[in-house]
C-alpha cells in the first residue's frame, strides 16, 4: 500500500483540568521516519493515540493523506500500531496473533497462511508459530508484535516506545533492524520515545514535545546542534548551560557577560537565534566541545574559564570530568584519552573551546519560546 502522509491541525486534548496536548500542528511526510521525543508525561503518547483513533481530540483535526479521520473509528483507520507492552493476546498462538488482522479483513485462508509466514520471516522469526506469547523471550515478543502489525500492510506504522522493555544490547540490535525494515518497506513511521539517543539515531525528523506542545521540529542534526531553547539543549544530549546577559550585539558579534564569570566576545554566525542587547541568554557548551588545559599553560589572550576538577571518571573511550567553574558544576568529556594527561580531583584547570561550538540559546523562562 502507498505510504500515507499524516497531518495534525491545531489538535488539543484535556483530561479534566489537565491539558495534555495544546494546539499541535505538524506534518509527517509519506515514507518518513518521524519521532515524537519528550520526557514522560509530555503528551507524546496521546498524540500517537490520536492518530490511531483511541483518543479523540477536543479541538483540531487529524488527516491521513487528505482525509480528515476525526470521525473514523480505530478499526477503519488502517494505521498499524505497536504497543509498548506488545499487547500480544495470551489466549492465541503466535500464528493466530499474526493472522488476526488478516482474518478481520476476510483474507482467504490460503493467503493468510503464506502472508503470516512471510511476515514472521520479515522480522526474522521462524519456527515459533505454534507457541504461546508467554513462551517467548522479550525480543521475540517484540518481533511478533511487529509482524502482527506489518502483515496487514498498514498505511502508517505507529510505534509507542517499542524498545523500552528490552535490555540494552538487544535494544541497539532491534533499533538497526527496525530501521532497515522501515527503509525497505518505505513505510511512514511515527515513533514515540523519551530516549534522545534512539531518536537521533533513527529519525528523519524529530518533534521535541514538552508540556503538550511541539517546541522544536527538525532533522536530528538541527535539533542537536541548534536547539531553540535551554530545555531542548539539555534534554537532547548533555550540555552545560551558562547563564548570562547580552551586553551588546552587532552583526555577527556579541559580548556576553556570564553570571559569576568573565565577559566573552563571540561570533554567532552558527546560531539561528539573534539576541538583542539586554537579553538574558544561556550559552550552551556540549561536554565534548570543551578542552581541558593546565591552568598555567593557558596562552595569554585566549578566552578561557578557570576551574577546579571535582571528579574524573575514566571510561575507556573517553574521560568524563566534573569541574567547578563559574559557581556551577560543569561537565567535560575528553574523547579518545589515550596518551593525554588525566587530571585528578583538585587540579586547577582552564577550559577552552572553539568559538563556533558555543550556542546562544534564549532562556525559555523569559517567554521567548517559539509558538
Amino acid at each position, binding site marked *: 500500500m502507498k505510504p500515507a502522509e499524516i497531518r495534525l491541525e491545531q489538535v488539543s486534548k484535556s483530561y479534566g483540568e489537565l491539558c495534555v496536548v495544546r494546539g499541535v500542528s505538524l506534518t509527517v511526510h509519506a515514507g518518513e521516519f518521524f519521532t515524537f521525543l519528550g520526557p514522560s508525561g509530555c503528551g507524546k503518547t496521546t498524540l500517537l493515540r490520536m492518530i*490511531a*483513533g*483511541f483518543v479523540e481530540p477536543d479541538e483540531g483535526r487529524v488527516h491521513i493523506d487528505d482525509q480528515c479521520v476525526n470521525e473514523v*473509528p*480505530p*478499526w*477503519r*483507520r488502517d*494505521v*498499524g*500500531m505497536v*504497543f*509498548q*507492552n506488545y*499487547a500480544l*493476546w*495470551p*489466549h*492465541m498462538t503466535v500464528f493466530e496473533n499474526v493472522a*488476526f*488482522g488478516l482474518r*478481520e*479483513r476476510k483474507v482467504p485462508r490460503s493467503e493468510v497462511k503464506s502472508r503470516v509466514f512471510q511476515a514472521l520471516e520479515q522480522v526474522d522469526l521462524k519456527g515459533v508459530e505454534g507457541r504461546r506469547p*508467554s513462551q517467548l523471550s522479550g525480543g521475540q515478543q517484540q518481533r511478533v508484535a511487529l509482524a*502482527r*502489525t506489518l502483515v*496487514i500492510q498498514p498505511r502508517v506504522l505507529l510505534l509507542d516506545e517499542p524498545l523500552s522493555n528490552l535490555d540494552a544490547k538487544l535494544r541497539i540490535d532491534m533499533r538497526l533492524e527496525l530501521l532497515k525494515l522501515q527503509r525497505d518497506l518505505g513505510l511512514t513511521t511515527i515513533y514515540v520515545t523519551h530516549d534522545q539517543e534512539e531518536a537521533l539515531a533513527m529519525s528523519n525528523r524529530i518533534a521535541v514535545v514538552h508540556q503538550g506542545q511541539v517546541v522544536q521540529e527538525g532533522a536530528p542534526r538541527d535539533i542537536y546542534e541548534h536547539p531553540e531553547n535551554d530545555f531542548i539543549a539539555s534534554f537532547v544530549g548533555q550540555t552545560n548551560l551558562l547563564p548570562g546577559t547580552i551586553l551588546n550585539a552587532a552583526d555577527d558579534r556579541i559580548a556576553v557577560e556570564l553570571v559569576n564569570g568573565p565577559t566573552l566576545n563571540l561570533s554567532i554566525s552558527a546560531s539561528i537565534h539573534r539576541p538583542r542587547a539586554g537579553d538574558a541568554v544561556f550559552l550552551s557548551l556540549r561536554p565534548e566541545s570543551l578542552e581541558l588545559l593546565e591552568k598555567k599553560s593557558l596562552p595569554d589572550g585566549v578566552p578561557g574559564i578557570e576551574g577546579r576538577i571535582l571528579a574524573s571518571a575514566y571510561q575507556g573511550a573517553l574521560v568524563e570530568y566534573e569541574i567547578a567553574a563559574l559557581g556551577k558544576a560543569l561537565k567535560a568529556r575528553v574523547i579518545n584519552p589515550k596518551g593525554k594527561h588525566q587530571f585528578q580531583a583538585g587540579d586547577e584547570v582552564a577550559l577552552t573551546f572553539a568559538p563556533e561550538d558555543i550556542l546562544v540559546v534564549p532562556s525559555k523562562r523569559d517567554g521567548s519560546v517559539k509558538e
Partner: protein
Amino acid sequence: MAVNTATLLIGRRRIDWWQSGIMAMVLALLTAFIVYPVLRVLAISLSDDSSSFTLIHFANFFRRPLFREALWNTLWSGFLVVLFSAALSLPLAFLLARYDFRGKVLLQTAATLPLVIPPFVGAVALQLILGRSGMVNLLLMDWFDVAVPFMEGLSGVVLVQTLHFFPFILLNTVVSLSNVDSSLEEMAQNLGCHGFRLFRRVTLPLILPGFVAGSLLTFIRAIDDLGTPLMLNYKNLLAPQAYLRITTIGMDDVDGYVVCVVLVILSLAALLLARKYLSLSEYATVQRAAPAIRRLGGWKSVLVWSGVALVLGISLLPHIGIVLLSFTKIWSFTLLPSAYTLGNYNEILFRAPHFVMNTLRYMLLAAGFDIVLGAMIAFLLLRTRVPGRNLLDGIATLPLAIPGVVLGVGYLRVFHGWDFPGANGPLTSSWFILVIAYTMRRLPYTVRACYAALQQVHITLEESAQNLGANRWRTFMRITLPMISGGLIAGGLIAFVTSCVELSSTIILVPRIELGPIAYGIYLYMQSPLGRGAGAALGVVAILLVSLGTYLTHRIFGGRSGNAFRI
C-alpha cells in the same frame, strides 16, 4: 568470614524449628478437623460389616432408582443454576465494568443484595410470592383462572438458588472484565476488530478462565445447599438424601455415607477443574492500563435501566417477602397479610433471644480463629521454605469441596464416641463443635484474603526495616501487620458473613435447640405455620447482620470487593 557464615547457618536453622513447629501444629489441626472426618466417612462407605474393603455399597447406590434420580437431579439443577446465573450476570457485568451511567452505584449495591439473604430464607419468602397460594398465583387465578407452578419441585430449587447465587458470578466477572489490559482490546481495534466480534474474539477468551472457575464454584455451593430443598420440601437431591438418611434412619446407615462420598466427589471434581482453569487465568491481570469506561446516556441508558430494573426487581422479591412476613400476624390465601404485628420481633429478641446471641458468639469466634489460622497459613506459604507447603495449601483449599452435610456427618462420627478433654463430654454435645465447623468451612476464603494481603507486602519492605535495625518482631508489628491488617479484617468479615447463613452443617451438628444459631432457629420456626412470622423476623436479623458485614467488606476492599468472593 567463616564465622559469619556459621552464625548465619545456625540462625537459619533455629528459625526453621520455629516455622516447622507452626507448620506441624496447623497441619495437625487441619488434619483432625478436615481430612480425618472426611476420610472416616469414606472408610465407612467402603467397608462391610466385618470392616473389610467392599464396593458393594456403591454398587447398591447406582442400583437404586431413588439415588440415581437424586444424583441426576443434583447435576441437572446445579447445571441450570450456573447456566441461568451466567446468563443473568454476563450482560450486567459488562455494563458495570465498561460503562458509566446515571445510577450505576445503585445497580452495584442492588446487585450484591441477594448475597445477604440466606437461600433457605429466600425460599420461604419466594413461596409467599410465587408459591402455589402466593401473591402472583392468587392474582393469576383471579384474572385468568390459571396458576403457574414456579416453586414446585426442582424448578423451585433452581429459581431460589439462581436468584441467590448469580451475584457471585456477577462480581467475579466484573473483576475479570476490569482486569483486562486495555491495550489487548485496543490492538484488536487497531487491526480492524470491534463491537461484538471484539468481545467474542478477544475479551471473552481473556475472561473465560476466571468466569469458568467462578461458575464451577457456584455449582459447588448450589449442590452443597441443604436448606433450600428442605424448605421447599423437595427431597430428591443428594444433600437432603444424605441428611435424611443420617437423621431418620440413623448414624449406622451406610447409604447416608455413600451419598456423602458421591457429593464430595462431585465437589472435588468441580474444584480441581476450577483450579486448572484459574491457573490459566494469570494472563488476564492488569499489566498497564485498565479498560476505558464509556459514558452511556440518553435513550440507551433508559433502555439499560429498564432491563436492569427488571432483573434486580425479581432478585429483590425475597427481601420484600421476608420483611412483610416478619410483621405478619395472619397471612393466608390473601394478596397481602390480613393482620400485622410486632410480636414476631418480641418473640425472637426477648422471649427466645438465644438464637441471635448464639450467632454473634459463634460467628465472632469463628472469624477470629479464621484470621489467626489464615494469617499463619499465609505466612507459611509465602515467607518460609518449610517442607509441606503444597500439602498445606491443598488441605486449606479442601473445605471448598466438602459439603456442609458431609463435614457434619464426619464430625458426628469421629467425635461422638469419646469425651473431649475439658469439654465434659463428647465434643459433639458442646456448642464449640459449631464454631469449629464454621472455622473450617470458611477457612479457604480467609486464607485467600490473608495470602493476597501478604503478597502485596514485598519482602524488600520487611528486609529494609530489618536492615535499619528492627528485629523480626518489630518488623512484623511496625511494617507487616499495618500493611496486611485490611486484608485480615476483610478475611474475617467474609468468614463472619458466610457463616451467618450456614445451615447445612449447622442442622446436623446443633446439640440442643437452645444452642442453635439464627439459621437453625429460622429452620425450626418455619416448620410450623404459626412460627413463620418469627422465623421471618430472624431472617431479617440475619439479613441485617450479613448486610453490615458485606458493607464493611466493601469499605475495606473498596471498588474491588468482587475479589473477596473469588477463589
